[in-house]
């Protein structure tokens, strides 16, 4: 009833709310993309890297000793390659991995059996995520020339030509970010690179029991303590976060931006609601006069406020959902961010809470309105 009274004001407020929640939807998608492994995958995996730096390699010889640690089930290894495809702006992660164990410890990488086998057996074989394949129009059998930025070939060339043998999907939509990566055979990489043979960037250790992750990590680090290649073993979730923290604390950045946005939103909608209720003081007085009780008046004003926020919130979240594929397409597939059901529920929950918070002061004022004063314009 009250929302229709001043349509322009309601529309502008709705737009403000919608924009705030659209921003929330987009930023939360970014946050989920950066922190998804925390909750979804890798709880039974450790990443073992150099204690001193993530770019410091470790000897491949560590492998045998780590296998002997009780609780270790499988070990894969990997090395950052960092190649460029055609143009430096075509950035995507390229990583040399040990195919068989790598696929075994990453069940979330879904690859047809034949392509899996081809990856394990093809010396120059590579697999790419579905999003990356779509971005460049690649198909199995294509040859992908990558320009090395760190590792030249032994023959002096910086071009590494890989054979695409498979296209993988992520098992869960939350992990779709991994579909932007290229993995190729470590054996070929190690054999053909000009320097650094026999070293790896990091190991991925799968443990028998996720509850034992900390114990196994300590045991591995103790194994190499006081050596020239000390290790730092951490859960995959911590490793991912520390990797993401090279950009910044994504969660903190998102929270800070959203905090500022929602603070401004509360001030804006709070002021709008207060003004709207002030304008309608005589009408509320009439409702009270004809018998609307104090709790009923409180409920009416609160319902209006929550409806305004819920409508705006839902519109904003829908806008974010519709914008994500557009942003992804505009960025050449680099921002394939998922919008999870949790983002919807959190957003609508926030809308409800903000609606309650901004509606409560005018609702209480309306509830306490003295009929005689309000009718006489006091």
């Amino acid at each position, binding site marked *: 009833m009250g929302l229709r*009274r001043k349509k322009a004001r309601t529309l502008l407020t709705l737009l403000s709310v919608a924009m705030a929640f659209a921003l929330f939807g987009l930023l939360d998608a970014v946050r989920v993309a950066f922190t998804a492994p925390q909750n979804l995958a890798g709880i039974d995996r450790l990443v073992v890297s150099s204690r001193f730096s993530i770019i410091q390699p470790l000897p491949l010889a560590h492998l045998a000793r780590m296998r002997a640690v009780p609780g270790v089930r499988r070990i894969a290894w990997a090395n950052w390659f960092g190649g460029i495809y055609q143009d430096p702006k075509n950035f995507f992660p390229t990583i040399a991995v040990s195919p068989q164990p790598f696929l075994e410890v990453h069940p979330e990488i879904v690859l047809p059996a034949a392509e899996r086998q081809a990856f394990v057996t093809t010396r120059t074989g590579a697999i790419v995520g579905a999003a990356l394949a779509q971005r460049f129009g690649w198909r199995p059998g294509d040859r992908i020339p990558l320009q090395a930025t760190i590792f030249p070939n032994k023959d002096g060339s910086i071009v590494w030509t890989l054979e695409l043998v498979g296209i993988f999907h992520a098992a869960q939509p939350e992990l779709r970010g991994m579909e932007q990566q290229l993995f190729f055979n470590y054996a070929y990489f190690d054999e053909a690179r000009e320097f650094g043979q026999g070293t790896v960037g990091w190991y991925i250790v799968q443990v028998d029991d996720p509850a034992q992750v900390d114990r196994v990590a300590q045991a591995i680090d103790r194994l190499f303590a006081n050596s020239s290649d000390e290790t730092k073993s951490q859960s995959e979730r911590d490793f991912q976060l520390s990797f993401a923290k090279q950009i910044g604390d994504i969660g903190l950045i998102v929270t800070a931006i959203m905090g500022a946005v929602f603070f401004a939103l509360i001030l804006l909608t709070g002021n709008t609601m207060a003004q709207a209720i002030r304008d309608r003081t005589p009408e509320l007085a*009439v409702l009270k006069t*004809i*018998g*609307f*009780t*104090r709790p009923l008046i409180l409920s009416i004003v609160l319902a209006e406020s929550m409806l305004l926020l819920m409508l705006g919130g839902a519109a904003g979240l829908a806008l974010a959902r519709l914008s994500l594929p557009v942003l992804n397409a505009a960025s050449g597939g680099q921002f394939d961010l998922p919008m999870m059901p949790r983002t919807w529920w959190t957003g609508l929950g926030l809308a409800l809470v903000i609606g309650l918070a901004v509606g409560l002061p005018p609702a209480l004022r309306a509830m306490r309105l003295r*009929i005689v004063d309000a*009718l006489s314009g006091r």
Partner: protein
Amino acid sequence: MSALIEIRGVSKAYTRGRQRIEVLHRIDLDIERGDFLALMGPSGSGKTTLLNMIAGIDTPSAGSVTVGGRRIDTLSATELARWRAAHVGFIFQFYNLLPMLTAQKNVELPLLLTRLDAAQRRRNARIALELVGLGDRVGHRPGELSGGQQQRVAIARAIVSDPTLLVCDEPTGDLDRQSAEEVLALLQRLNREHGKTMIMVTHDPRAAEYARRILHLDKGSLVEAGAPA
């Protein structure tokens, strides 16, 4: 038989700063069922305050107000609201219709507090609007109606839940002569033909002539009672 409304020793005082202002001073008054009472007096005489006490939208500082055998001055705010919804119809000087709602929806408002379903509410509202002669204006919003028509919508709203009494505060104060006479004739008809008990505050002696009884207040006290000329 006891009166519908019994007012005993009612006083009302406000405190403004250190000053205590007594608006009503020990009023005693009985109003019979079916009466049409006009309350007259100069500005500040306390007539609207007395009307508010009877209607249950204000409470006395002292004394008692009994309507239909029930003391209403001791009721809580919520009990009073429920009592008003069941027993009192209000007609204001400036109509006080909700501008976003049609005449039909405005009249349905008091029925939202009853157990009637939507169809029954619509039917009752339409009957009330027919009764005040606005059966052809149900879909109009207040801004699309004349002052006299708006006041008739307000009267329909006041009677739609069949209240025990109607209270009218300067119901013709904002109307031209002709509209005022139409509204007063309607009120008189509701009193005479439908037996509605009415209390009307007015400055206008010609409006008061439509009532069965006139009371004058001055400085918070009843000074004179009489019948219209």
